[in-house]
């Protein structure tokens, strides 16, 4: 049974769903802004900071001994502050564990550190990109408390993965059109092109995605990008057959229906699974006054990570507390002005999903065209 009663007011629902951030994220409890009056944190405090960035099951001492080429005893001496770290050792630790010293020291001329890999055909192919997402979700699974919040511009890509026809269309579009992969330039889209390996990775990601509690903030315009991409390929004759176009539309409709089904139950489950078997909450808010930017906030045992999409489907990751805290406050604010449609709000929910279906229908029946074909 859903933990939030349908009788509960919306404001109460908002409070309950966001309270997990405040309980677990230390940056929310106290203002982490620069305070030059604060004493410089000592070396044992630095190692406690490093510890918080590593999953609990990993031995920090062994890891440090390995990267610093030191004995276990020597590592312990450093962790206890009996032996000072050198600049070289500090650099190795920060580089290995992606620790920001600016954040730790709270200097005001601070930089926000983001990690990223750039999708390209030679160095980081789409298969590796998907595998990295899969590995990231596996990493999330190592934590006891894990939640994600998604402020959408488009639908989160995890929604596409269980639906092979629309998923493969998106894969194809990203590689051929967004990223200009040379191997794709002469190809037309055909259903079945990528169904074997990429679809399997995508399906695994989707399964893990259903194992995390989620809040998503949707917009009725989220569907537009995909519809325009289909339109672009229709205009450019990049579909191998008219039948494939219909299959892609059908698949998109199935995806939207499954999203609606999960929203009705307020639970995440895979296509075909019984909703009552689902364990984890799926909270959906809708708004049309702000189009998101595909920012995703993930909380793992109290530590927050922010994923920010750039250049199409590439993403930057940061654990910078100040940046995460600001993003979280912003998302909370958008939520407070949005309508909650999971489990409750049948009228608003039906209207929202019907608006999406109307848009699909309008494009499918060629009542709306791309700008190239108005």
């Amino acid at each position, binding site marked *: 049974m859903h933990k939030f009663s349908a009788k509960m007011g919306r404001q109460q629902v908002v409070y309950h769903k966001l309270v997990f951030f405040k309980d677990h994220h230390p940056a929310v409890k106290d203002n982490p802004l620069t305070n030059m009056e604060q004493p410089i944190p*000592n070396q044992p405090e630095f190692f406690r900071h490093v510890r918080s960035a590593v999953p609990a099951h990993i031995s920090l001492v062994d890891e440090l001994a390995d990267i610093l080429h030191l004995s276990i005893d020597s590592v312990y001496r450093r962790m206890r502050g009996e032996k000072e770290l*050198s600049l070289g050792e500090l650099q190795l630790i920060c580089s290995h564990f992606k620790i920001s010293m600016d954040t730790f020291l709270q200097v005001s001329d601070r930089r*926000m550190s983001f990690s990223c890999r750039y999708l390209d055909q030679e160095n980081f192919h789409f298969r590796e990109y998907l595998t990295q997402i899969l590995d990231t979700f596996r990493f999330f699974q190592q934590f006891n408390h894990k939640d994600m919040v998604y402020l959408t511009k488009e639908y989160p890509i995890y929604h596409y993965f269980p639906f092979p026809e629309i998923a493969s269309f998106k894969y194809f579009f990203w590689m051929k059109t967004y990223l200009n992969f040379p191997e794709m330039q002469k190809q037309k889209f055909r259903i079945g092109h990528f169904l074997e390996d990429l679809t399997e990775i995508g399906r695994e990601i989707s399964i893990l995605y259903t194992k995390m509690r989620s809040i998503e903030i949707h917009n009725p315009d989220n569907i537009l990008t995909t519809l325009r991409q289909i339109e672009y390929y229709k205009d450019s004759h990049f579909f191998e057959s008219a039948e494939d176009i219909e299959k892609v539309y059908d698949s998109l409709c199935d995806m939207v229906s499954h999203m609606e089904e999960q929203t009705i139950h307020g639970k995440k489950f895979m296509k075909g699974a019984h909703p009552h078997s689902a364990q984890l909450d799926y909270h959906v808010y809708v708004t049309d006054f702000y189009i998101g930017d595909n920012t995703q906030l993930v909380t793992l045992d109290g530590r927050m990570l922010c994923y920010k999409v750039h250049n199409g489907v590439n993403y930057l990751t940061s654990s910078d507390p100040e940046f995460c805290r600001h993003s979280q406050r912003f998302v909370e604010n958008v939520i407070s002005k949005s309508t909650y449609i999971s489990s409750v709000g049948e009228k608003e929910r039906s209207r929202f999903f019907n608006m999406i279906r109307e848009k699909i229908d309008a494009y499918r029946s060629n009542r709306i065209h791309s700008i190239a074909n108005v």
Partner: protein
Amino acid sequence: MLTGATGFIPSPTFNIAKMDTRQIQTTLFNTIRESQAAGDSFPEKIAGMLDISTDSAYRRIRGEKELSYSEICTLCRQMNLSLDQFLGMGDGQVLFSGNSIEEGVFEFTDYLKEVRDTLSMVEHVNPKQLIYQNKDISVFYYFMFPDLMAFKYYVWMKQHFSFKSFSQREFSFDLLNKEQRELLNQINRLFIGIPSVEIMNPDNVLTDLRQIEYYKLTGGFGSAGDMERVYKSLESLVDHLEMQATSGRKWLPCETPDTATQPITVYVHDFHHGDNEAVMLVNDQIITVLTHTSINFMRTTDRQMGEYSYQFMQNIIRKSTLISGAGEKFRTRFFNLIRERIHLFRSNQVKSLQR
């Protein structure tokens, strides 16, 4: 080397290689030295901060003795230096700088100052070019139209950032104070001095229309007349964009086209809802600017990030249609499509979540 549809070729001399420990230490001391007042003894200053002898300070400055954890922390804290920029944070790490709007901490006036200062840095540097791929209409155009700007300011402070000082405040066209209006004028003047390439989408206007719709349905406008002023201001903005695209030059709405000195190149497409991302090509550097949480922005000079973003935009451009200085039929169609949208929202013919 970067070459692309926009025709800009910055020199490829800027290069960040991963530094070894000694180089990091030397760079750190050089940075501290640059910030020192003329006439001060640098080794004595370091000796004083670290509570060591002048000889010991010399050994550290020359890189003969490696700095320790407490010494590094002391120097960075006392000099308020970013250590991350020296350590490099490892492969695949990009350092961004920027502040985010927060009531009482970083107000809208501070935000405008940061925008102005960012543009000022490149004012006298040549060559330069700003390339922008939009999700929304570029904020620089809001800044040029006072009625629309007043509305956007109200939405940003009240809706997006929940400023307490705006919670009970009603919308008015006089919300911006004198200092903010002056900053906007400075930004406008700097912005039209930069050659730019804009990648637009007919959906860029949707956010504005939905925001007006939200206030229309929630009774947020003081009068129907106020709402009409905002719609008219938005239409004026679209007219100005079209005139600029027609001539391929940039100028301020309050001035005449013959004052324009810098070019604007406009491409349109509709298959990618942009990221509100910009790259600024400045002499031999690329500055990447990413927008986040509404209108906040962060920037980096990371070369790899800049080159990737630049190439991504070049690719979008290759699949887009040029409408500035050429393509009259397509340009007219594009701007009429935007006007049709405005008309549909204005005449209540578009469904919103509330309607």
